């Protein structure tokens, strides 16, 4: 169940490729008031200066691709993927 009282929830954020370089870290634990993946991205993006709009990026929660409107739960591991470029 989502938790959204004043104390917030504890999640782990992971950054890949250009996001990792911009954030200067691969992984961080944070306590957040954000309730969705999109809100959390706005929060960390502002702090780390991640350059891309979510329209071009993807997010995964606990190793499953997720929608940006997915609600976060205590303990979630949230993976932020900049625009992909395989092949």
């Amino acid at each position, binding site marked *: 169940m989502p938790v959204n009282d004043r104390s917030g929830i504890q999640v782990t954020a992971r950054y*890949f*490729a250009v996001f990792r370089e911009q954030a200067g870290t691969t992984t961080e634990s944070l306590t957040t008031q954000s309730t969705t993946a999109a809100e959390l991205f706005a929060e960390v993006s502002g702090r780390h200066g991640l*350059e891309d709009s979510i329209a071009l990026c993807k997010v995964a929660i606990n190793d499953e691709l997720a929608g940006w409107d997915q609600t976060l739960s205590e303990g979630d591991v949230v993976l932020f993927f900049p625009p*992909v*470029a*395989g092949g």
Partner: protein
Amino acid sequence: MDERADMLDFEITDRDIDADALQRRLESDRAGAYAAFQGWVRNHNEGRDVDSLEYEAYGPIAVSEGERVLAEALQRFNLLKVAAAHRVGHLQIGDCAVWVGVSAAHRGDAFDGCRYVIDELKSRLPIWKKEHYAGGDSGWINCVTGQPR
């Protein structure tokens, strides 16, 4: 091995892609057509001279999403078998970064299925590449614009 596992095979690897071994997995007495695609590291992009490419993947999702793409292709294009592999790590000009192969009874399905797989792999898998330029600088490629950033 269950039936689906015999029909599709996707892998992320940090070693040379063994195209011959992958192709043998596609053999079938019912197959009249085989189509394959390889992405090679080329020496230029958007007007700049490229020296080498670095590929990074997030393995767990790259593999599950890759298998999903292959399963979609099997079903939509009436393929007999499909396989694909994507390299990660530091690649040089001419190296094979991605390989896709399919077998089908007829060639139209084989071409369409192979094209579908590479298009979807490129746009859906969490894989990124950083170009290293002749001048010594580098940049991550944005698949939407094709341009370094």
